[in-house]
């Protein structure tokens, strides 16, 4: 089966170019040079039809950038995004437009993601009208239909975004994406800005829509406990690279990468109420100047000399399980002993 979305060696570098004054200062020997941020560094990922993939990582690890590249909002520096096996960059004309519409994005901030000057009917109805999903006479019914699907009262369609609550706004954003009949949704922290009581409602809406419209999701979040509920598979990113990818149950039962272990140890759980939480040692390093070798080595409890020099490769261990760590290739028994000590409260 061809995956809906496949990402090959996808890389995004942001370069801050020097202005004229900076270039002159550089020529004169000042310690100023172009700054390059490796936001996403050679990521490979494939997502099958109907799957819900959770993408988890600390803020600044490149998960949003990866999501935006998949959604076609940001151009990639290197690598390719394949939709149904076809490179989206190679498509042209109507095919390119169809590919762009097939992948839609749900944004984090329900305030900033809706144009404050447009009415709900304009927000939802603009793209279907422009792209010919409906005509002027059918537009009103089309909008009503979309609003009902996302749980909004169609009688509110004359209103402006500021007249809605956060949860309702997020529904408007989902409706806007659904109106162009996408097959793949990138949800970038789509429920992080909502009240906890509303979060569950919106999550349920996502799951209903998935069944109803045969959708596939990439669910970006910094919160493992949210992703645990809805994702079939979880991908963990650290500083622009994928460190581990596994089925949700497998990942929670037996995390392999030291970073995943550290993340899981911080998820609050009812059965471990009395334990002390120990933050991962150190800060996330600057992506301007990432550590050599394995990006996680300065914070890793199991660091070895090889970690500082060689970049670990993402290796397939079992079906649906990939880990990028030197420990697994050298001595897998050893980490279990180590981690038993370091994980105990």
């Amino acid at each position: 089966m061809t995956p809906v979305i496949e990402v090959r060696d996808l890389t995004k570098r942001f370069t801050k170019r020097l202005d004229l004054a900076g270039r002159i200062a550089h020529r004169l020997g000042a310690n100023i040079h172009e700054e390059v941020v490796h936001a996403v560094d050679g990521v490979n990922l494939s997502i099958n039809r109907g799957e819900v993939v959770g993408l988890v990582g600390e803020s600044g690890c490149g998960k949003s950038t990866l999501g935006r590249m998949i959604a076609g909002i940001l151009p990639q520096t290197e690598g390719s995004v394949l939709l149904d096996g076809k490179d989206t960059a190679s498509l042209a004309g109507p095919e390119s437009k169809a590919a762009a519409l097939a992948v839609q994005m749900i944004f984090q901030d329900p305030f900033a993601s809706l144009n404050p000057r447009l009415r709900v009917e304009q927000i939802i109805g603009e793209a279907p009208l422009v792209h010919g999903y409906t005509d002027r006479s059918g537009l009103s019914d089309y909008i009503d239909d979309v609003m009902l699907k996302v749980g909004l009262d169609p009688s509110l369609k004359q209103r402006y975004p500021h007249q809605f609550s956060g949860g309702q706004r997020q529904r408007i954003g989902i409706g806007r994406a659904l109106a162009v009949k996408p097959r793949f949704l990138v949800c970038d922290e789509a429920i992080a800005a909502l009240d906890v009581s509303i979060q569950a409602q919106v999550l349920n809406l996502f799951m209903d829509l998935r069944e109803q419209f045969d959708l596939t999701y990439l669910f970006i979040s910094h919160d493992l406990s949210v992703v645990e509920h809805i994702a079939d598979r979880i991908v963990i990113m650290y500083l622009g690279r994928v460190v581990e990818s596994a089925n949700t149950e497998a990942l929670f039962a037996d995390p392999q990468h030291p970073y995943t272990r550290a993340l899981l140890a911080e998820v609050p759980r009812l059965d471990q109420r009395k334990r002390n939480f120990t933050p991962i040692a150190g800060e996330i390093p600057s992506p301007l100047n990432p550590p050599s070798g394995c990006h996680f080595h300065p914070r890793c409890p199991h660091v070895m000399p090889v970690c500082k020099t060689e970049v670990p490769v993402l290796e397939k261990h079992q079906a649906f399980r990939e880990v990028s760590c030197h420990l697994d290739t050298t001595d897998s028994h050893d980490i279990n002993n180590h981690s038993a000590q370091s994980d105990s409260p």
Partner: protein
Amino acid sequence: MNTEATVMKETPLQRFWSEFCESRIAVASLVVLLIIILLAALAPWITPQNPYDLAQVDVLDGKLPPGSDAYAGYTMWLGSDGAGRDLYSAILYGIRISLTVGLAAGFIALIIGTVIGLTAAYAGGRVDTFIMRAVDIQLSFPAVLIALVLVAILGRGIDKIIIALVAAQWAYYARTVRATAMVESAKEYVEAARCLALSTTRIVIRHVLPNCLAPLIVIGTVQTASAIALESTLSFLGVGLRQTEPSLGVLISNGFEYMMSGRYWISFFPGIALLLTIVSINLVGDQLRDVLNPRLKR
């Protein structure tokens, strides 16, 4: 679900208006401004004399003090100028010209500046650098100087004055629009529009531009006032409009030579009219800025 929606049934326009009315000075200024505009618009019907019609202007009526009777019989409540124009009539006709020039220059500069600013924000790179350096150079010269040079080259007349004022003012709009457009286009709703495969033109015109309007309105008001002042300055310096169709600046300039001989009214009353016009526009603009600035939202 509906409770929250019913609380906010006030439309944005109603809220804008009630916030605008919070300042009494601004409301008073708006009233003064509306009266000035109304007087100027109705000038042919409420003035005893058409100061542009040389058949109605009698040089024997020249330099009469306020309250004198003209040869034709009507009373010149504000006196007359050196050429025998009734100052009350001349001021109303002068406000017409000043307002027309100010509004036309402000509007054209707004359109040109907006297009240039949006181009800079969206093209980026060298085009952006080129445009913004041009703006910097433009803004580093005093507006009067630029207008003066242009009028000297182009010659006199309303159209030429408007061209000179536009050339002196487009840069303010361009800079404002570029900055606002860059802030707006980084917002997620623009990303969403791009994700929906809408064309760049559509995104700029339908999504970005409407959200840049608030600062544009504010700059537009203040710059219109400054265009009127600039036109008066040019006319006062003698390079603006023709003597036969006097604007407020020409009237002030005409009366200036009589200032020291006790005939204060020839410069004084047009000066008051100009002051009222500019101050009221500026006060309205200030309040607009306060109301439309989202950072000052209570």
